[in-house]
């Protein structure tokens, strides 16, 4: 009888020890999993942060490059436009800034047609210091009665702080039946 009791208590105690061990093991596994999950999360955050930093750096470099190549403050863009163009077939535009030739653009038939349909062509972009500058634009083409036509237009403009846009506009002067060449600054 005593032996039986001893045996039962032994079995019960062994069972208790086993269950305690397995509980401890489970807890340890759960802890390890949580720790590794935490580790992964922090690693993922690190990667995300690094990605963001790379993107920021890329954006900054792009802006810096653009500012260095065409600083907004010294940028001047020149555009050619054609209004109606009944009295003038555009052949080429030659631009001189402060006496130095900067652009000589030949227009193909297709390009001239695009201008006649309302297109605006950026013929040149420059970086200029602040102060006064002289622009001379020479337009060649065929005028009324398909005669060779060559006309110049001059503008002295003040380059202040900030970008500047200048339009070289070819319009028709119906009264005189002649083309007109106007250079104007965009406000």
């Amino acid at each position, binding site marked *: 009888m005593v032996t039986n009791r001893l045996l039962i208590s032994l079995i019960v105690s062994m069972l208790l020890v086993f269950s305690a061990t397995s509980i401890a093991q489970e807890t340890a596994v759960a802890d390890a999993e949580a720790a590794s999950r935490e580790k992964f999360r922090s690693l993922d955050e690190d990667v995300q942060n690094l990605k963001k930093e790379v993107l920021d750096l890329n954006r900054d470099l792009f802006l810096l490059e653009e500012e260095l190549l065409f600083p907004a403050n010294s940028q001047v863009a020149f555009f050619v436009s054609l209004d109606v163009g009944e009295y003038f077939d555009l*052949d080429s535009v030659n631009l001189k800034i402060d006496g130095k030739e900067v652009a000589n653009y*030949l227009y*193909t*038939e*297709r*390009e001239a047609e695009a201008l006649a349909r309302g297109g605006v062509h950026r013929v040149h972009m420059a970086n200029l210091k602040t102060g006064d500058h002289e622009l001379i634009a020479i337009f060649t083409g065929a005028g009324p009665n398909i005669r060779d036509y060559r006309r110049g237009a001059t503008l002295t403009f003040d380059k202040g702080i900030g970008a500047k846009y200048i339009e070289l506009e070819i319009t028709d002067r119906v009264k005189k039946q002649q083309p007109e060449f106007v250079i104007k600054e965009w406000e």
Partner: protein
Amino acid sequence: MKMKNILLGLLFSAFAATSLASSGLTGQAAPDFALKSASGENLRLSEYRGDVVMVNFWATWCGPCRQEMPLLDELYSRYGRVGFSLLGVNIDDNSSKAMNMVSELGVSFPVLFDSNKAVSKLYEVDAMPVTVLIDREGTVRYVHLGYKPGYEEKYLDQIRSLLRE
């Protein structure tokens, strides 16, 4: 000492290979240009994108050019309707001489005048004639320096293969 020589040799050959590769236009995007043509219109290369384009640089004082031009004209009349264009760029200082030669030879392809040699410089023309073949994407695929009888066979093969692409 021997090792140093080998290293120097390797360096030199690498430099030579680089300079050789950078001197050619083959495989590069064809530099765009616009020039006045004999008919009076301005022609721009980029407007021929989608066609196989041959740009032939020639001069009136160049004998092989005179031989080559009628053969090029044959290619132009044969393949012109299937997407092949030919631009003959004359580099003479005086375009009237070129006009005379064109009418004398009776060629029908567009002839452009590069009197200030800006386009010739762009295409690194240092021989006469120079024939450049550009694919439909606008990439320079073949550059031929000079002309010898039989070159037209090469042109024919290359034009046909570029048209098939």
